């Protein structure tokens, strides 16, 4: 029984590692400038965590195999190094491991959060509400008009609550249900929640940020690959949470300009 248990642990450990090693279910491709930092951090962590996992399971299995059901008079052995050795080993090995991970990981985090958006970044506003994202581009004047929550009206498609008759800045604002961005240009995403908490997650962009009602946050990123991706909500927001999504199209600059022109005409 004990030997069978030991073998089972080893089989489970190896079987668990195979899909990771073979990339059976890989992470979505990376299309952002900062994403490789996260991916490198991820694979470094995977190597260290994976080795710890395999080592611990194997040693556990070997000890179960070797030391179970021994005769009553078998001598109780002493683990080499004893408790002191293990504590020192844990402090040195795990301590340096996690410190290294923590310190190197800071780089990836800093690249996302500790750098201001560049001056020529393209501002886009996204509003999350139950259960849709809407996007707003500032139009030719480069300014967003103010929001009037009381004026939000879905039936006449005033999703943001803009007062386009009175607010000068709102007049040329372009509101869309789909997000489009030019490739290789930094996007400054201004995030606004209409009702409850939501989240903006594009796995390919390596971007995830919660919307906080009452607190407008912003993030910035640069996409490097033309294509069509999905934006999904990752913060439980109600019954339609699973279906709250929008498309993100990354265009070349020319395609983006013509897309924006087309959207402006539709307003």
């Amino acid at each position, binding site marked *: *029984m004990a030997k069978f*248990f030991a073998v*089972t*642990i080893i089989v*489970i450990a190896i079987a*668990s590692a195979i899909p*990771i090693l073979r990339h059976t*279910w*890989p*992470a979505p491709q990376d299309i952002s400038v900062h994403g490789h*930092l*996260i991916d490198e951090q991820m694979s470094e*962590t995977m190597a260290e*965590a994976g080795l*710890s*996992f395999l080592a*611990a399971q194997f*040693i*556990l299995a070997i*000890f*179960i195999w070797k030391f179970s059901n*021994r005769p*009553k008079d078998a*001598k*109780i052995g*002493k*683990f080499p190094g*004893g*408790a002191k050795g*293990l504590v020192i080993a*844990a402090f040195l090995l*795990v*301590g340096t491991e*996690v*410190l290294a*991970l*923590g310190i190197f*990981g800071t780089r*990836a*985090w800093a690249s996302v*959060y500790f750098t201001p958006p560049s001056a020529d970044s393209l501002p886009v506003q996204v509003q999350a509400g*139950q259960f849709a994202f809407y996007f707003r581009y500032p139009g030719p004047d480069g300014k967003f008009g103010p929001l009037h929550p*009381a004026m939000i009206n879905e039936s006449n498609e005033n999703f943001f*609550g803009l007062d386009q008759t009175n607010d000068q800045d709102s007049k040329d604002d372009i509101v869309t249900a789909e997000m489009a961005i030019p490739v290789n240009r930094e996007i400054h995403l201004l995030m606004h929640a*209409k009702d*409850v*908490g939501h989240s903006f997650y594009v*796995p390919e962009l*390596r971007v*995830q*940020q919660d919307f906080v*009602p*009452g607190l407008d946050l912003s993030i910035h990123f640069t996409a490097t690959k033309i294509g069509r991706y999905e934006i999904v909500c*990752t*913060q*439980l927001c*109600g*019954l339609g949470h*699973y279906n709250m*999504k929008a498309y993100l199209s990354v265009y070349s600059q020319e395609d983006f300009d013509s897309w924006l022109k087309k959207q402006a005409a539709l307003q």
Partner: protein
Amino acid sequence: MHDVSAHAAAHHAPPQGFIRKHVFSLDHKVIGKQYYALALVAVFVGMVLSWIMRLHLGWTNLAIPGLHFLSKTGAPGDIMTPEYYLQLMTMHGTIMVFFVLTTAPFAAFGNFFLPIQVGAEDMPFPRFNMMSFWVTFTAFLVLIASFFVGDGPTLGGWTQYAPLNAVGAVSGPGQGMGVVLWATSIAIFCVGQLLGSLNFITTTLDLRVKGMSLMRLPLTAWAWFITSCMGLTAFAVLMPACILVILDHVAGTSFFVPSNLVINDQLQPHSGGSTLLWQHLFWFFGHPEVYIAIVPGMGIVSHVLITNMRRPLLSHRVLIGCMAAIAILSYMVYGHHMFVSGMNPFSSLAFSFPTLIITIPATIIVLMWIGSLYGSRLRINTASLFALGFISMFVSGGVSGFFLAQPSIDIMLHATYFVVGHFHMVMAVAAIFGIFAGTYFWFPKMTGRMMNETLGKVHFWLSFVGTYCIFMPFHYLGIAANVRRYQAFVDEYLQPLIPVHKFITVAAIATGVAQFIFLYNLIHSRFWGKPAPDNPWEATSLEWSTPTPPPFDNFGGQHPVVYHDPYQYGVQGSTGDYVMQTSPEQVVTEHDEK
């Protein structure tokens, strides 16, 4: 003077009559069993909820026969609605975290065995102890009541993020009365656990018998003591937070609801509340809570393992120190649940490092267990199999903590199935394995009868393999960016992952069915099991020096005297390779470790 200041240990007389004996009993052993029964009911309710959810995730729009009996509106034609999925998910999480993982390893086993292990007749405040159970039971009833009130239970998840938890019925089904009942239930639950913690702490500090110094307490007693210290802090914070939610609902205050929210084109009347405030209050409770679930398991596993290894751990003190370190660190790390919540990004880093550092005491604990296996005379029985299974689970779930502790990786993995896999493995299933280990180990003492070992081993194999089949794939799904809390996967990039969900569903149902073997074994052995001797496992701690099952005042009016450290195994004793704590004989060890 001495007689008036004599300590207040419960010198109450044995109760007469069914109600005082079995229902409103002051006896810590009966209260412990009541907690166990509550957890048993709760865990099967929670498990059935997870089956329904899993079936729905594997085969969306599958008609589950009879589902419409559970809810009038949630499952027309037996097909689950999106909101009903979220409602079941919320209830699954709440029931499991509060009424299973907190009550079973801590309140149930702790109540039964802590007083016996320190040599006391009872807890010092038996009336508070009785209230603690009945208050917890009331909390459970209030939570279950939300299934039958209005449009069902809340759908906000067990974390109940603001402002979804506070804007009211307009934000979705169950968000009116459902949330109020949820918050009421949890606030009541907190009261129950605070009363329990009061008893646990005073029992450990004040009621130890002669010779039972703190370092001579068994590791289970230490684990319960540390857990009750954590619980005292955590539940005292969650309770006011729940009251604030209730006030936002019923009194129209705005603690958590900010201004200018628009739902269904209606501007909400609230103003100025802070949504992050809820997250801070909740996770200040929430992170210690996961240690409240797992630390008693660590104690139970150490206790069971040492007995079956026939040797003490490499170091008793180091294990206690590590559990205490985890308890203290648990209050400094809670912000790692909020890396992408909009909290100051510098705070994320500040929370990340203590989180990473917590792996050090956790690793040392695992190394103590594995290192102690070396050179031991390990006995394989159901209890020790579950204890060893716990170690395997705890390692598997623990290593995924490396990822989630780092804010940069959390950008990718936050709110994905990776998180679900991580916490299910490291705190849910591991803790459940701890409960199983404790059940198979202590059942003889609790009931006077042995459990069936063959059925126990079948139960173990199905549970161990099944658990890995369920929760390992969750990690793969998470790496592939599969978002959690979705009732169906409509996004294109998630389509290739649906077969994995089907596999998990099948594994979950099979593993769940295996739990009925346990239930059968438990009930059958309770009434028809083989009568148990006083010390079937040749163990040393005080609970094994009482008659089986222990009489009303545990030690028959005697006060045991403790002469030894708790785990004198691998020694040359007069009765075998162990010397009990109460035995005055001198100890000659076979090994030179202390």
